[in-house]
C-alpha cells in the first residue's frame, strides 16, 4: 500500500497560541485513520493543513510523495488537483453551504470538472439518493435542519469523487438512523479504496471503521 499522506514533525501556532506540536504521521492509501482528542487539541487545524488551507510553521507534508507548501499551493493547477483529490467536510456545515439550492450545491463541484452536464447531473442525483436527501433538492441549504445540512455537505464533497476524504466530526448532530447511514456509506467508500481521515470523539465510529487511531493531547500527539 502506498503512502497517501506523510506528515513529519508538523508544528503550528495561531499567533502566540500553539495549536500543533511535533505531529508526525503516515496514512496509507485506502486506509482509515481516526484523529481523536479533546476539544481545541488541533484536530481541525491538522485537517486544514492536509487540505492546504493552513500552513505549518515547521515540518514537512507530502501528498502522494509530492511536497505541499505555501509556494506549491500558489500554483493554480497543483492546488486545484489537491482540492479535487482531497474532499474536506467542515465541522460546521453552515460554513460549507453557499448555493441557493441543495441540488446546485451538490452539482457545483462536478460542473467544474471536465465532465458533461449529464454526467454532473447524474453524480448530483446519485449523491442525493445515497444520502437520502432527494426530497430536499430544491430547498435552500441554509433553512435545512442540522442533520440535513450535514448530509448535504457530505453529498457535495462525494460528488467530486475525491481519493481522500477528510471528515471533521462527520456524524455530530445526526440522529441514530442517519449515523448508521453515514457509517454504511463510509464503509462502502473504504471498500472502494478511498482513504478516510476522521476527526471525531465518537468511539463507536472509530471502532467500526478506523484501521488506526491517532490520539491528541492538547496540541501534542
Amino acid at each position, binding site marked *: 500500500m502506498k503512502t497517501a499522506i506523510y506528515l513529519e514533525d508538523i508544528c503550528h501556532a495561531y*499567533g*502566540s497560541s500553539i495549536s500543533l506540536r511535533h505531529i508526525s504521521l503516515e496514512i496509507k492509501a485506502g486506509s482509515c485513520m481516526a484523529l481523536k482528542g479533546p476539544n481545541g487539541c488541533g484536530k481541525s487545524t491538522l485537517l*486544514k493543513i492536509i*487540505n492546504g*488551507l493552513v500552513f505549518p510553521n515547521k515540518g514537512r507534508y507530502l501528498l502522494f510523495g509530492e511536497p505541499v507548501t505555501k509556494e506549491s499551493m500558489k500554483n*493554480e*493547477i497543483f492546488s*486545484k*488537483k489537491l*482540492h*479535487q483529490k*482531497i474532499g*474536506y467536510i*467542515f465541522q*460546521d456545515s*453552515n*460554513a*460549507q*453551504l*453557499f*448555493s*441557493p439550492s441543495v441540488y446546485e450545491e451538490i452539482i*457545483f*463541484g462536478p*460542473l*467544474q*470538472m*471536465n465532465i458533461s452536464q449529464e454526467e454532473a447531473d*447524474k*453524480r448530483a442525483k*446519485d*449523491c442525493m439518493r*445515497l444520502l437520502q436527501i432527494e426530497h430536499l433538492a430544491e430547498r435552500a441549504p*441554509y433553512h435545512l435542519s442540522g442533520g440535513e445540512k450535514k448530509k448535504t455537505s457530505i453529498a*457535495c*464533497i*462525494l460528488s*467530486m*469523487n*475525491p*481519493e481522500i476524504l477528510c471528515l471533521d466530526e462527520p456524524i455530530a448532530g445526526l440522529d441514530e438512523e442517519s449515523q*448508521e*447511514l453515514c457509517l*454504511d*456509506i463510509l464503509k*462502502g*467508500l473504504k471498500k*472502494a*479504496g*478511498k482513504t478516510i481521515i476522521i476527526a471525531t470523539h465518537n468511539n463507536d465510529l472509530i471502532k467500526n471503521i478506523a484501521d488506526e487511531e491517532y490520539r491528541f493531547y492538547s496540541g501534542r500527539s
Partner: protein
Amino acid sequence: MEHNIPDWMNLHECHKPKRDSRRFITATLKSISSASSLFRSNPKAYSPADAPVMLFISIALIIMTASSKNLYFSFVMLSVLSVRMCLLEGKDIIKAFLTALYAGIFSAIILIPSVFFGSPHSLISISLKTFITTGIIQCLSISSRWNDITASLKMFAISDLIIMSFDLTLKYIQILCSTCEDMLNALLVRSIGKNREKAASLSGISGTAFLKSKKMSEETGQAMECRCFSGHYERKIRLRHKAGNIISIILFSLIAAIFIYLEFRIS
C-alpha cells in the same frame, strides 16, 4: 441496511483542471481577514496606561489638535506622536504610520483646490492635523483592547445600553468575519476548475452571512429575555497601571499647558 455506492465512485478520477483565476476568492479572503484582525481582541495590547486614561487623553489630544489655530502646536503634537509611535512594536509602527500617512495624503489631495483659491496654509495645516489625529487613533486601537475601550465609555456618561450595543457589534463582526472566512475556504476547496458564476458564488456567501447575522441577533434577543434582561448592563472600569496612568496624565498636562500657552499668549 445496504447502501451501494455508485459505480463512478469506484473509479479513479483523472481530473485535469482548467486555468481560471481564483483571485476573487483569495482577494476577498485577504480583505476579510484584515477586517477581522482589526476588531480581534488584541492579546498583546501593551498600552502604557489603562484604557480609560488613554481614551480620555486621546480624545482630549484630538480636540486640542483640531481646534488649535497655531501651526507650532501641530508640530509639537507631531513630535509627541512620533515618540508615542516609537513605543509600539516594529510591525505596529508601520501599520500606524502608513494608515495616518494615507489619511494625510487623502486630505491633501482633497484640499488641492484651496491652493488656487488663495489659502495654501489650509493644505498644510489640515493635512498635518489629519495625519496627527489618525495617528493618535491608530496608537489607541493598537495598544488597547477594544473591549476595554468600550468599557471606558462609561466614564463619559454614555449609557449602558449603548456600551452593550458596541460590545455586541464588536463580537458579531468577529463571528461573521470568521463565518465568511470558512465559507470562502469551502468555496476555495470546491473551486477545482472553471467557475463560470463567480459573482453568484460570492453573493451566496454574503446572503448566507446576512441570514446568519439576522438569526444570531434574534437568538441573542431571546437569550437575553430568558435571562430576564432588564436593560442593566454593567462593565467595570479596572485600573491596573498606576505608575503608567500618573506619568501619562503628567505628560498630558504638559501638552495641555503648551496648548494654552501657544493659543492664548502668542496668537
